């Protein structure tokens, strides 16, 4: 019970670095980042302009790290940052920012705005201004093991179900396996087909794999809330598990921010490079496809489109593999406007989907996705992130759009050639 403004300010002083200083000094208030943010485009409210979401941090930077800013503060030309102000900013820093990173790629002076929002959240969480919803998720992840409160027995129950359904073994704690497969709670509870899909695909490819009893949950609410200390606790479990089982590669599930937390933040959180590789399941499937280890038969004939999860594509650098995989199993694959690198967020990333009071805004922002979908009128929507999937389903239901959402891995698994899989087994 020790969150305070002082603590927040101190943490911000720690995280403000040369890039942030450069970014704040470069901003010319052109407002183009607003045009890239779906919370602005769909509401028209200028307070959702991405760079404005950082205003308290900008002032703090100026007052703490520039000579003129210090003078301005001394003579009263620059207001000090107050606790109430940070409280006011909670909505802007969490509810209306999904860390989608579109603002960072349009800024004409090159400011990486999402990089700054991520750092600002460090100060916001340390000063006690994180939203209740994400705090709850962090609590459950750290104390129980997963944001949805899923424990190992529940996973084991699902494993047994899948083994029965697919007739394939689901290895647990198999030392020396090539791949360690991570799950997200969402998949354990809502989309168990994912586990079956992995089993089928790995079987066909002839690869060894395993789940880990001490680290099955990939999601990292600590990163979403923006607290490196807690994010480290969560990511350390995975590192320990992977090193204990001596796996070559840890596979991040169909979950965007889990991938970012593990692939890009993980090593920095624990303070040393990983001894294993981290790949998103889509990257692994793409590799199998390229190496001829993934063989499918038959095609989906209905009209399909693909929603790129921000953390996978724009923030993660995986853009082409999912398209090649889609074409492998879909006859009628259409691209939405802005698809790929510039795709619009589902509206629930970066922890936003866990914020109950942000739901109205989220649904408002979903109008962007609606218009993207309306442009191509697909029969089904494919994606590669369980969180996107949930948010998309909520939005589609709200706007009464009858478009089922499926995960790409399951879609691929449905087409995995049976006879080859038998041969492999």
């Amino acid at each position, binding site marked *: 019970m020790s969150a305070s403004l002082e603590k927040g300010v101190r943490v911000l002083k*720690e995280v403000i670095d040369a890039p942030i200083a450069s970014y704040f000094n470069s901003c010319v208030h052109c407002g183009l980042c607003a045009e890239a943010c779906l919370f602005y485009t769909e509401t028209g409210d200028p307070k959702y302009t991405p760079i404005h979401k950082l205003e308290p941090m900008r002032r703090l930077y100026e007052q*703490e790290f520039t000579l003129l800013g210090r003078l301005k503060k001394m003579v009263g030309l620059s207001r000090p940052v107050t606790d109430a102000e940070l409280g006011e900013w909670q909505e802007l820093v969490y509810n209306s920012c999904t860390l989608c990173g579109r603002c960072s790629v349009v800024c004409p002076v090159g400011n990486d705005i999402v990089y700054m929002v991520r750092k600002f959240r460090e100060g916001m969480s340390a000063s006690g201004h*994180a939203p209740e919803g994400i705090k709850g998720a962090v*609590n459950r992840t750290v104390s129980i093991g997963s944001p949805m409160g899923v424990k190992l027995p529940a996973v084991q129950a699902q494993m047994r179900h899948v083994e029965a359904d697919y007739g394939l073994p689901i290895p647990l704690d198999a030392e020396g396996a090539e791949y360690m497969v991570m799950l997200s709670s969402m998949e354990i509870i809502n989309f168990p087909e994912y586990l079956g899909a992995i089993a089928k695909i790995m079987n066909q490819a002839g690869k060894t794999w395993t789940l880990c009893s001490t680290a099955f949950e990939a999601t990292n609410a600590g990163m979403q809330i923006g607290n490196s200390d807690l994010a480290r606790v969560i990511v350390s479990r995975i590192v320990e598990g992977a090193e204990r089982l001596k796996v070559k590669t840890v596979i991040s599930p169909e979950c965007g921010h889990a991938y970012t937390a593990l692939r890009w933040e993980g090593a920095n959180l624990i303070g040393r490079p990983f001894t294993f590789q981290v790949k998103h399941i889509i990257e692994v499937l793409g590799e199998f496809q390229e190496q001829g280890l993934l063989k499918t038969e038959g095609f989906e004939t209905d009209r399909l489109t693909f929603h790129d999860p921000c953390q996978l594509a724009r923030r993660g650098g995986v853009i082409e593999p999912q398209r090649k995989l889609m074409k492998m199993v879909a006859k009628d694959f259409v691209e939405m406007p802005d698809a790929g690198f510039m795709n619009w967020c589902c509206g629930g990333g970066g922890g936003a989907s866990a914020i109950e009071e942000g739901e109205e805004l989220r649904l408002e922002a979903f109008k962007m996705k609606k218009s993207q979908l309306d442009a191509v009128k697909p029969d089904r929507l494919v994606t590669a992130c369980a969180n996107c999937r949930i948010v998309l389903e909520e939005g589609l239901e709200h706007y009464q759009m009858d478009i089922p959402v499926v995960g790409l891995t399951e879609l691929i698994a449905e087409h995995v050639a049976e006879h080859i899989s038998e041969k492999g087994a």
Partner: protein
Amino acid sequence: MQGSLIETLARQGVTRRTFMKYCATLASMMALPPSAGRAMAEAMASAPAASKRPSVIWLPFQECTGCTESITRSHSPTLEGLIFDVISLDYQETLMAAAGHQAEEALHAAMKANEGKYLLIVDGSIPLGLDGAYSCIAGKSNLESLKEVAKGAAAIVAMGSCAAFGGLPKANPNPTGAVSVADVIKDKPIVNIPGCPPIPTVMTGVLAHFLTFGSLPELDKLGRPKAFYGETIHDRCYRRPFYDQGKFAKTFDDEGARKGWCLFELGCKGPVTYNACATVKWNGGTSWPVESGHGCLGCSEPDFWDGGGFYKALSMPANPLKMAAKAAAVGAVAGVAVSFFNRGKKSAAKSAHETTTLADLEK
């Protein structure tokens, strides 16, 4: 038209037609209506007997006699020289035959006889340093003389840049404390005819105007006749098209110089100099500085001597990087100091870091 001037002119082979043409040209140059040319001609041609001609007193102060040289020598026997025939030049040290006490007597006699009506021409600046001891005539400082003679004058003509603006004697550091006529005399109409030296035609034009209309021509805010000082050298320069095309002579003997390109880069002050050289020209219309291949020095502008160098282009700063190295060093020192301070602040924050636990998310 009867009178001594026209007769004198005729004796020297100048026809009435030539004289009329001259007056018309003078009038048009001064932007006066065509009828003014005729009025001038009549006023001057019918100048009465010598005793009734308007008296002109010419006082020389800190000067080089260049202005007098310019006016007298350059046109003899042109019409400009003859203009003196319509005035009674009662005191001009260089030209008058008298000297010493005789000259002083002539001066005082003229002042007394024409009190309130004579025209005072001054060339040279007035030194104020050492109580004016830098320049004295007949035991009086220039300051005293000027005040004394100006008192009874109808108007004053400050001839040349020294009288008009202080000129060369006033150049930094101005050892004699030189000032212009207008700095001393505040209660008389003064017309400035700056230039080092001024164009003779300008001088005659102003005199003709005074004789014809009994008043001074229209002046700009520096007291110069607008008719002659209304436009810059640059605007009327025949080399202006080269400036607009970006063709500049880079040295005095390069291809551009031979082709007559713009002299801006060689320091021409034409763009900031208001004078009539480019249109009236010198030596009876023979040539003028830029035509002879040298940039304008800006000699008719105040403080032209201290304008940063005759051969430095106008766009070039006088001494641009004098303090730059020092400033850069100061910036670097300040920057490094701030850097150390900032890094200290950051590491202090880091070492004060308390690892956040779940409970620490709450207030």
